[in-house]
Every structure is written in C-alpha cells, then in structure tokens.
C-alpha cells in the first residue's frame, strides 16, 4: 500500500534517485555532502543529523510551521510547505444543477442481480471504447499523416480508475477504430503514479509534440514533453519521453496536486508558443499561462488567462478560436478580427464541463468573457448530461474543430467490475459558433457517423393529440439515429394564458409531469408496457410576457427497474428563434443516448441501463403528454450499423 507520507522516512526519501534536481546553488548540494574526515566524528554526526532531522520534521509537520525564508531557498521551500489543513467547504449550492457523480444511497440495498445477458447488452455499437477495463479523459486527439489519433486515460488492470497509462487507437473516419499498443506507460519517476492528460501540438514544419501531466513517484503533478519515436510512422506507435523531463513543475503558490492537463499550444505575436494549465487558488478556478520557444523551457506569465471565484479546481482546460462568420473550424493559433475565443474548463467540484465565448488579448495573454454573468463555471455547459474532461482539436484534414469527451458509467461499480469495462467516449462533435444567437456554440455529431445509417423509416406529419403515445415499431431499437421536427398547434398556443415559468428539467417530474404545451418527444429504450423507458422531450411553457420558453430534457427516472443506476433527469432551456421549428436528433446506442436540440444548441448525453428493454424488447415510441396542445411530428429513423471498434 502506497504511503502518502514521506514523513515516516525522511532519510530514505533523500536517498531516492530524486525527484527534482537541486538548484545549482552551493547551499543546496543536498546530495553532495562534504567528505567527513574522521570515522568517529562521522558516526556521531550521522546519528545527530538523523535525530535533528527527525525532530525538525516532526516539529514542522506537526505544526505546519513555515521554514525560514531565505531568499536563496525561497523557491525550494515554498514548494515544500505543507498543504493547507483547512476543512474543505462543501460544494457551492449556487452552481444550479447539483448533479454530481451518480451514487447509490447510503443504507439502502443497492445491489441488483445483473445477469450476464443484461450486462452484455450494455456494450455499444458505435461509440469508442477499449475492449476492456477502465477509460477516462481523451488525450492528444490529432490528425497526423492521414490518420485520426485518439489517446486516452486507461487503466489496464481493472474496470476502475487506477495507475493510468495512455491507451491509443487510430481511425480514418473517426468512427471505425484500430486499437494500438499502449503509447506511454508509467515507466519514469516523473509519471510513475500516472501518465495523465495532455495535448498535442503540430508545429508548422509538421513535427508533433505532446505535453502531458505526470503524477510523480511522490504524487506531485508535473508537465512532461513527449514526441513520436519515429515521426514517419503514421500510426505513431512508439513514443519517446524527453530526457530532461519534467519541463514544468508546480510554480510557487500552486499546490502540488493542483497542476495538470496542459493544452495544445498556440502562437503568440512574438512568435513563441503559448499554453495554458488549469489550477486553483483556494476556491478560485484559474488558468496559468506559459510561453515557450522549444517546449523544453517555459516562462510563466505574470497574469492568468482567466480566473473565476467559487468554481474550484479547473481540470482539462481548453482554449481555442472560433470563426464569427465562417462555417469551418480554425487552427488553434488563428487570431484576428473575425475570431472569438472559447475558454472551457472541467469543474472538478461538480464534474461538468463549462465554457464561455469571449475575447482574447494576445499581447497580455488574457481572455475576457463576452457575458461575465455567464462566466466559465456559472454559464453554459457543453452538455447537460454526463460529459466530462472534454477536449477539442483542429482537424486540418477537413478544417473542423472537433470535440471529444469522456462519458463515465452511471451504474454501480460492481456492475462495471462484473462486465469487465467502464466508460465510453461520446461520438465526436464538430463545434462552430451559433451564427443566429452569437452567444453559444453549436455541436453536432461528425458527419461520418451518417455512414452507419441504414433502413430509414419516415413518418410525415403525424398528428399527436394531447395525451397520446404511438409505438413506431422499429426493430433493433438499441442502435438508432432519430431526426425529428415538431410543431405545436398555433391555436392552443395563442389561446393559452401565460404564467410564471418555473420549470427545470432536473427538478421536474420528467415526462410524467404534464403541462399545457408539453412534454412531447420520444421514449427510447422502451419496454412494451413502458415498465422501462427513457423519454427525451421538449417541454414548452408560455411566460407572462406571452413568449414561449422551451426546455429540452432526458428523463432517466423510469429508464430501468434496477435500483442501483442513476435515475436523474437532465436538461436545460434551449433557445428557439422566431420561425424555427422544434427539432431534435437522438443517437441511441445501447447504454448511451445522445440527444441534440435545435441542431446542437443544447445537448444531453445519458447513460441508461434497462433490465428488460434490451435486445428485441427495446422499442421506440413517440408521445405527446401535454394536456392541451396537439403536436405534429415528422420523423426519420435510421437503424445504425455497428462500427469496427
């Protein structure tokens, strides 16, 4: 069992092939003790030294004393100061949706007798996942010499998180994948406890470099440089870790465990490379900025890229330009008047990914949100369901900005251990600025996914009376692509009196809670008698001012009869502009459902674990559970082939 405390063995720590090279300063020659001339004195000295060190250590550790602040030893000592011993505050309740990790209730019997049959069904047909064991964050996604590469946090030994290495897979089309050997193992002292998240940068001459976080043998978070062993190998099978690693260590004032996930680099006006790394200062989430010319030595900028109080640790920070007018993605270095910049962070405290659109000042290395009230951590999320540690890359092959994300399990870990695997990647999404609203991005599954569509069934102008449900009789309803448009009948909408709209997907009764103008949508992974079903729906409400507010929700509350799975309802308001019909797209793929409203303005990813609505018993229904309005729906449903994964 690893001990977190090196207090027990201060001397043995000193004799390790140590973590950090001492400063090139005469006073710090820790390992170069002057020769002791007399053996007896040597013995006495050693014993006394041992005692002295032991007492000093006990004293300081016991009381958190700061060591004397000698200017030469400042940097060394500040990195050594004991971590704050403050009782952590509970998570802010002001974050709105409090959905955190799913967890079974304490005290209840939370085990369900999952059969191998039920568990086997949960594996997906077209979502990226390794053959077995645990995956988390996507790493260094990149298009290189004709191949899309995906690396990922991987625990090779068990379907739970652990000592993480970099898994690796390649694809020509982002949909069919070839698994490759582990790219990087925990084989150096500076990543012995984990080869954690990192990003790739392609240099103008085509060279590829990777910066990643290593958790050292002492569990300190440092940044390391790695590059392909053979740059002419398009599959990038073998990697070399720069012998001079780590290239970055936690700077003064930053906790040794709050320094991780370096971004792709972008060019500065001076022609240097710039990266950002998330961290925190007390409860303020921050993003540190470093400039470098060679990815080996870095200069920490005085200011931060951005900071938001109350948001806690920023993990997996991402920073990238989006075009104001164009439909393409932009290389990470692009800047100029036609460009806005997105800052995104994964909030460790609430396990959601937040982003904001703003303006980047390249000279100062600072970014300011367009709307400070919807700042990073308080405003928009990429996805209102399960979606974390996401990362984008610029796909120079098709000039797109593509988003990858880790989708964790929301079942009991026991089931993961039984089924032998845990976690998926979401279907990669393209990101562009929403030209109509100008205040959010739009995400949409990459077009390549459409290659899996087959056997379309179309329903045109199906009239759904208030309180009706229609089975769509689609076989193989575990792998579907559903695209639909809905229209509420004008007459009812106009006739209705508006009222206070206090609806929130997460706090609602889900699809069972009826309103005058909603909910309506689809029930996916539905059992014949609806003992299990997962509604994805719109809920429209008329405000006091006569304007309509539209909510888009995915309801897991009746998704499974098992007691040990997450039954939350996810969702958010979705902007609907004048003249727009309500539209949704749903990708159903066994235990994952990805839902998109208004062409990707609001997205929801859900994990679903039915016990009965599986295999041939999984069905699709269309419903309108409103009390007043009729809804007209036009639907295309495709069965989805499985990809090679």
């Amino acid at each position, binding site marked *: 069992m690893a001990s977190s405390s090196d207090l027990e063995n201060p001397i043995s720590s000193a004799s390790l092939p140590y973590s*950090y090279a001492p400063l090139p300063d005469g006073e710090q020659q820790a*390992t170069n003790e002057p020769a002791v001339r007399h053996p007896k004195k040597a013995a006495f000295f050693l014993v006394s030294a041992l005692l002295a060190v032991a*007492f000093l*250590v006990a004293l300081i550790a016991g009381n958190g004393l700061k060591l004397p602040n000698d200017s030469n030893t400042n940097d060394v000592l500040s990195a050594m100061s004991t971590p704050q011993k403050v009782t952590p505050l509970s998570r802010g309740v002001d974050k709105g949706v409090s959905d955190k990790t799913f967890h079974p209730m304490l005290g209840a019997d939370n085990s369900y007798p999952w059969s191998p049959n039920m568990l086997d069904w949960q594996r997906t047909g077209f979502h990226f996942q390794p053959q077995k064991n645990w995956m988390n964050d996507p790493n260094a996604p990149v298009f290189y010499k004709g191949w899309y590469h995906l690396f990922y946090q991987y625990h090779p030994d068990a379907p739970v998180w652990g000592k993480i290495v970099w898994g690796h897979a390649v694809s020509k089309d982002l949909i069919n994948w070839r698994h490759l050997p582990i790219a990087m193992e925990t084989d150096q002292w500076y990543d012995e406890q984990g080869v954690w998240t990192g990003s790739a940068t392609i240099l103008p001459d085509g060279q590829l470099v990777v910066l990643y976080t290593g958790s050292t043998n002492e569990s300190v978070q440092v940044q390391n440089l790695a590059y392909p062993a053979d740059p002419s190998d398009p599959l990038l099978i073998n990697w070399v870790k720069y012998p001079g690693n780590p290239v970055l260590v936690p700077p003064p004032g930053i906790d*040794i465990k709050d320094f991780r996930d370096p971004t792709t680099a972008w060019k500065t006006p001076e022609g240097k490379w710039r990266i950002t790394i998330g961290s925190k200062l007390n409860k303020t989430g921050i993003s540190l900025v470093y400039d470098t010319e060679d990815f080996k030595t870095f200069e920490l900028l005085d200011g931060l890229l951005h900071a938001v109080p109350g948001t806690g640790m920023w993990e997996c920070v991402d920073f990238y330009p989006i075009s104001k007018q164009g439909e393409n993605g932009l290389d990470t270095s692009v800047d100029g008047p036609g460009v806005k910049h997105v800052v995104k962070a994964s909030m460790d405290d609430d396990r959601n990914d937040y982003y904001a659109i703003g303006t980047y000042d390249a000279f100062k290395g600072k970014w300011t949100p367009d709307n400070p009230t919807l700042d990073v951590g308080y405003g928009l999320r990429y996805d209102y369901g399960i979606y974390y540690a996401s990362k984008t890359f610029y796909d120079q092959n098709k000039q797109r900005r593509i988003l990858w994300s880790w989708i964790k399990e929301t079942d*009991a870990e026991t089931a993961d251990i039984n089924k032998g695997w845990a976690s998926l990647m979401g279907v990669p999404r393209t990101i562009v600025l929403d030209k109509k609203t100008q205040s959010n991005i739009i995400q949409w599954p990459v077009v390549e996914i459409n290659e899996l569509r087959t056997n379309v069934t179309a329903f045109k102008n199906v009239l759904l009376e208030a309180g009706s449900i229609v089975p769509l009789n689609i076989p193989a309803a575990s792998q579907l692509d559903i695209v639909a448009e809905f229209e509420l009948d004008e007459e009812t909408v106009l006739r209705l009196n508006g009222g206070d709209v206090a609806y929130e997907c997460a706090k609602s009764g889900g699809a069972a809670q009826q309103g005058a103008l909603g909910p309506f949508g689809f029930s996916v992974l539905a059992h014949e008698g609806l003992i299990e079903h997962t509604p994805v729906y719109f809920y429209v409400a008329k405000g006091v001012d006569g304007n309509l507010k539209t909510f888009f929700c995915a309801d897991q509350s009746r998704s499974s009869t098992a007691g040990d799975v997450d039954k939350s309802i996810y969702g958010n308001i979705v902007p609907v502009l004048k003249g727009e019909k309500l539209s949704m797209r749903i990708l159903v793929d066994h235990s994952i459902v990805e839902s998109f409203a208004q062409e990707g303005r609001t997205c929801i990813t859900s994990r679903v674990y039915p016990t009965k609505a599986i295999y041939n018993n999984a069905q699709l229904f269309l419903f309108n559970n409103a009390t007043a309005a009729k809804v007209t729906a036009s639907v295309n449903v495709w069965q989805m082939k499985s990809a090679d994964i």
Partner: protein
Amino acid sequence: MTFSLGKANFIPQVLRIKNFNMKFTSLIMIFFSHLLLQTPFIVMGDRRLIESTCKATPSYNLCLSTLMSNPKSTNGDISDLGLIMVGATKSKATRAIQHIKSLYMSHPELRHSLNECAQMYMAVVRADVPSAIQALDGGQPKFAEDGMADTAVETQACERSFNGRGQKSPLTQMNKDIENIANVARAIIRMLL
C-alpha cells in the same frame, strides 16, 4: 526550475554549523523542549480535526476508534484520515475473504453464495481499495469516492446472495461492519470534494 521536496534539505542547514559538538547539543536540547512544549497543541489540534471529521460520517464511534487507534492520524490532514479509513476497510475485507474460506468447508450447502461473496470481496481488495488509495494519494478524491461507494454495495450484494437463495447469511454482521466502515471512508472522502 524550482522545487525539491526532499527533507534532505535539512541536512545542509545542519552542516553549516561550524562547531559541531557544542552547538549541536544545544540544538538538540532546543528541539526537545520545543517538542515537549508543542505536544499538547499537536494532540489537541489533531483531536479536534478527527472529531469534527468523524461527526460528519454516518458512524461517529466507528470512525473515532478506527482513527485514534492509528498513529498516522495524529499528523494527518483529511486526505490522510481518508487513507487510514480505506486501509481499515481493506483489512476487514481481507479478513472477510479468510473467514469465507473457513466457512466454505464447514457449510457445503452455502457454497454458491459463499463463493459469490468471496468474489465480491476480492473485487474490493483488488480493485476498489487500490483505486481509492491511488486516487487519494494523487489528489483525485472523486475517484476514491467511487471505490468506497462500490465497497458498500458489494457487502449488500453479498447479503443478497444468501437471501436470494432463501438461505440465512452467516456473514450478516461482518458485511454490516464492512459496509459501515466503507461508508465512513466515503463520507471522509466527500469532504475533499
């Protein structure tokens, strides 16, 4: 580049003292007296942390006795207290496997359920506990919480193995103990989130 975390840095401090014997002895005496003077404060401060931590868990007494009986708790922060509790969970789960093995021979009629329980506890010892320790050491408590939450679920699944076959479980007390301690560990880990 900055940093070094080695306690080895203290040695050069000591090296700078020129007249070893005399100055060193007086240094030792100062340390002794400091230590003696500070001792009540160390004990009081840490006891307060342990008490307030345990109050926020579902089993105060179990939490308190487990932490107080481990010397590492006297200098620990909440992460260290979490590690102690995870360690205690591991010990109990390891003993559970031994106990189950001993029952296997004496209760052949319960073999199916006992076997299932052994598997569950092996999952705890091989997967949940190492994951939680790795996560607490690495500063990623969210993964540690997953591990302890699962441990509690495994104890319930073990009980269910017997009940599901209409058998009386010989492991009820043991399962409850481990469920309780895992829930305490989980509650402590939540404080880090």
